[in-house]
């Protein structure tokens, strides 16, 4: 998928009136079933990437779905999005920042990988069933603000097993932690604790952390070659069904007998 569309200023601006949903392909069976109904390959298979603009109930296509945006340009895509809002959802702007859920990735392990792909830091909420809702509530206004929207990947953990990708359990279990992913998204380094159930998140502190965070510059080909040489292989939750992807991975890993 052409990522340049999704980093275009006009598209980002238009996206503020949408609920933006990015799933990790092949990481959840129920999501895969849903995606396959939205768009599938010629053989009915789920491909690596899917793109769609959908109605609020997630059932009706508002533009042609495909592996990526089929618009002539990012500007045309933004125009279409704005047109949808004017024609069908004129009150969408009223809800821009009143989201009621944190934009969390399904697991900490997956979130670290996603953060590495995005070159973003993670904010991880850690607590038990009692403290996690309170911690999440603290983060909501920051996660959904023009200042911080989309600049962190979010995840939560409520057990020692969940925290395994961090390599260690934070001393005082409950709280909010800033985590730096390694370049291959297989582990995360706890940079600091930024809040807990009783102390508020400091927005100036978040800004400072963002300014200090420098993700590694990655070359696509070099990253894949290095990952292969180190033996860093990601096991998806469900089998990959993108035919080109399968062929390419087989060619790469054949020599390691994997």
């Amino acid at each position, binding site marked *: 998928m052409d990522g340049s569309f999704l980093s275009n200023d006009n598209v980002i601006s238009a996206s503020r009136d949408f609920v933006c949903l990015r799933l990790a392909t092949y990481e959840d069976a129920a999501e895969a079933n*849903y995606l396959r109904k939205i768009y599938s390959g010629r053989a009915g298979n789920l491909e690596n990437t899917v793109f769609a603009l959908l109605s609020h109930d997630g059932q009706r296509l508002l533009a042609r779905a495909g592996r990526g945006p089929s618009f002539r340009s990012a500007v045309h895509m933004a125009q279409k999005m704005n047109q949808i809002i004017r024609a069908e959802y004129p009150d969408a702007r009223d809800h821009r920042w009143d989201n009621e*859920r944190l934009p969390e990735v399904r697991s900490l392990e997956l979130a670290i990988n996603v953060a590495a792909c995005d070159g973003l830091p993670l904010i991880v909420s850690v607590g038990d069933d009692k403290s996690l809702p309170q911690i999440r509530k603290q983060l909501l206004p920051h996660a959904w603000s023009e200042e911080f929207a989309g600049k962190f990947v979010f995840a939560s953990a409520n057990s020692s097993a969940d925290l395994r990708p961090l390599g260690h359990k934070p001393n005082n279990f409950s709280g909010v932690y800033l985590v730096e992913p390694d370049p291959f998204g297989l582990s995360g380094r706890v940079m600091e604790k930024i809040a807990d159930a009783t102390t508020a998140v400091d927005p100036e502190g978040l800004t400072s952390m963002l300014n200090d965070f420098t993700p590694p510059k990655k070359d696509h080909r070099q990253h894949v070659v290095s990952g292969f040489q180190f033996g860093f292989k990601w096991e998806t939750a469900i089998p990959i069904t993108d035919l080109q992807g399968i062929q390419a991975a087989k060619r790469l890993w054949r020599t390691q007998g994997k």
Partner: protein
Amino acid sequence: MYRTFITLCLLTFAVGALEAASPKIAWYGKLEDGLEEARRSNRPILLVSAAPQCQNVPGMW
């Protein structure tokens, strides 16, 4: 030499700050969360799915 070093440090900080300041799309990461929010707020959905691995090597879309 010292001035060059300071200039380089300031430039690096400036580039980092610019990158941090540039807006980004805010994504829900779970289908149920995004669908619930879209229904609740009556807003349309921008849906994207991508594999966080390339030829099974993680850390790259």
